[in-house]
């Protein structure tokens, strides 16, 4: 790994290092964001990092095939589906509770933050 980095060649390690870093950043966001939409954004980051990794492995291990790329496509599709559902939920949630701050969403009832009459 070290010699590749030194030589400036972009080997597998470099690629994976980058995607792992992206994913880790996503994990950080996933755990620290308080806004539901923010969490969703972080999740997209993770998904994307995973998709890129798929493609990298595809390019390295089976350059003549497209399995990793197909996976990346699926990831996009799943992300789309996820965003659609999340959007519906969050919009509804917002209309009920006037907040999408997940730390305010525990417990039942019409909302602790702003929904109480």
């Amino acid at each position, binding site marked *: 790994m070290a010699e590749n980095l030194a030589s400036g060649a972009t080997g597998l390690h470099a690629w994976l290092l980058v995607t792992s870093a992206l994913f880790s950043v996503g994990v950080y966001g996933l*755990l620290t964001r308080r806004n539901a939409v923010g969490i969703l954004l972080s999740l997209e980051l993770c998904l994307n990092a995973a998709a890129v990794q798929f493609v990298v492995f595809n390019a390295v291990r089976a350059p003549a095939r497209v399995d990793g790329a197909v996976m990346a496509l699926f990831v996009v599709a799943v992300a789309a589906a996820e965003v659609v559902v999340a959007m519906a939920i969050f919009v509804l949630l917002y209309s009920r509770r006037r907040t999408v701050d997940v*730390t305010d*969403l525990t417990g039942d009832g019409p909302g602790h933050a702003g929904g109480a009459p």
Partner: protein
Amino acid sequence: MTCDHSAIVQHAWVIPALPLLSFALVGLVLRPLNARLAGAVAAAAVALSAALGWWLAFDYLQFAPPAEPLPTLIPWQVEWLRFQDGLRIDAGTLLDPASVLLVVVVTTVSALVHVYSLAYMKGEPGYGRYFAVLNLFTFSMLGLVLAPNLVQMFVCWELVGASSFFLIGFWYDRPAAVAASKKAFVVTRFADLGLLLAILLLGQAAFDVRTQLGASAGDSQALDFAFLGRADVLAALAHQAPVLGGMTALTLGCLLLFVGGAGKSAMFPLHIWLPDAMEGPTPVSALIHAATMVVAGVYLVARAFPLLAAADGVLTVVLAVGTFTALFAAAIGCTQDDLKRVLAFSTLSQLGYMMLALGTCGGGDPAGRSAALFHLFTHAFFKALLFLGAGAVLHAAHTGDVWHLGGLRRKMPLTHALFLLATLAIAGIWPLSGFFSKDEVLAAALHGGHPLVFAVGLGVAGLTAFYMARVYLLVFWGEPRREASAHVHEAPLTMVLPMGALAVLAAVAGFVPVSRWVALPGTAEHAGIDWLVAGPATAAALAGFGAAGWLYGGDLGRSDAAVARLGRLYGALRHKFWIDELYLWVARKVMFRLVAAPIAWFDRMVVDGTMHGVGLLTRLCGAGVQAAQTGQAQAYAAWALAGGLAVVGLLWAAGRAG
């Protein structure tokens, strides 16, 4: 002609079956419909049974070959309960002189008491119930008497106890009656435990013997009296290895058997229930607590006599307990105020007499057994008569306190005469029945080599005469001491007639050669009256009468002075040596407070507490997990991540280890 041809001997089971049938009929059908009819049917059934009982006795005696001992027959038995091979329990009728004798006593007294009760219990709300239970009692007592094995005896033994319980507690809204019924049941139950253990112990031991004997055991079952009485079986039992404290199963079993008998016959120290049992209706006291049920213990010892005789030292225990009870109860009887209680202590004392007689047979001569059965026979009549007389007094005056009564001889002349006759009979005045049987008991003590017991017996005879004369004088002589006893009237004919019948029996029963009939082989024959015994006994009785006459016959101040002089002894006697209090203390403080309450507490706190503790632990674990269930998806994600990383870590560790 032999017994086989007698219809009643063959079908002796009809005698107990009649009251049973009547019990079912009266209890289930007639009682709710018509109480009077129920009573009449019950009385008629028992009267019929009594007639059959007499017929049985006549046939049994008549058909017996003259010179030989009377036969022991089991004309009828059916399998009732099969524990296992060799331990089958039959229901059947065992006829031998003792059982036939008891059948006559039980049916006769029971029939008379039934008739008496028709008037005595008139107007009681539980009239039908009373007769139903009385029928049940009669059936059970007959079953007990006719039992061919220990288990049938035990079954009926318990049933008479239960009937006694229900009859003592007949007036169930009186707390004293309820308490007395419970006391009677629990105390006798405690003694029955002895009988039960005896059955277990003897059953097992005899079963072993039966297995050893192999084919020679035949079809006889381990707990049959016939089997237990066989000489080879007794010998084998006596040679078994000791089971506890050097005692063989036979000795221990017989001791426990005697505990059972002592409970039912209210021997010291299990006597405490009998005086309280007087809370029941007086006819019940006459039948159950004087004439029949309480002698079951004596009968048991007499029935299992071969066993007890074969066991070392058990008869000595019987002798000691009987002698002590006779004296102890007679002494207490001199100080009681309630007419029925005096009679109860008198019963205790007389039962002690019978046990004493049985106990004298330790030397090998079973004359005492005959004497005991003879005394049992005569006692049944005169004691029942005394109770029925007391009942007539109670019925008229509504109080049994002798200090409230007085002068009844003019208002109730018939009752007075009959009571006097019974008093003389129990005191042992010739030619009444008590004289003969008491004579035999004392003779057995003297000839059995127990001079001390003989002396005590004489003393008891004196005391008996004293306390009987005391109550007799206080109740029937002098002037009425309270309003209640001033306006009494003679008992109705339905009550007087049974008393009259009993009086006849009490008068003539002494001439029946009971002891000759029931004598076991090997009993020394002694002809006529032994004046060496009868003389002192009669003298003692007369002395008792004299003392009572002096103290209570005229100026009652003399008795007060005597009481004062006796001081503490009188107090102790009057309080029955505080034995009831001791029992109560043991029951309340020890059993309830030191055993039952801690167990209840232990159960709730420790056992259940442990279970709840386990539950709480689970719940705490749950709460711990619940704390993680914040509803925060991010927290879940963090845990999921941590879990995933942990798995990777484990794989790594496994990889390193591998």
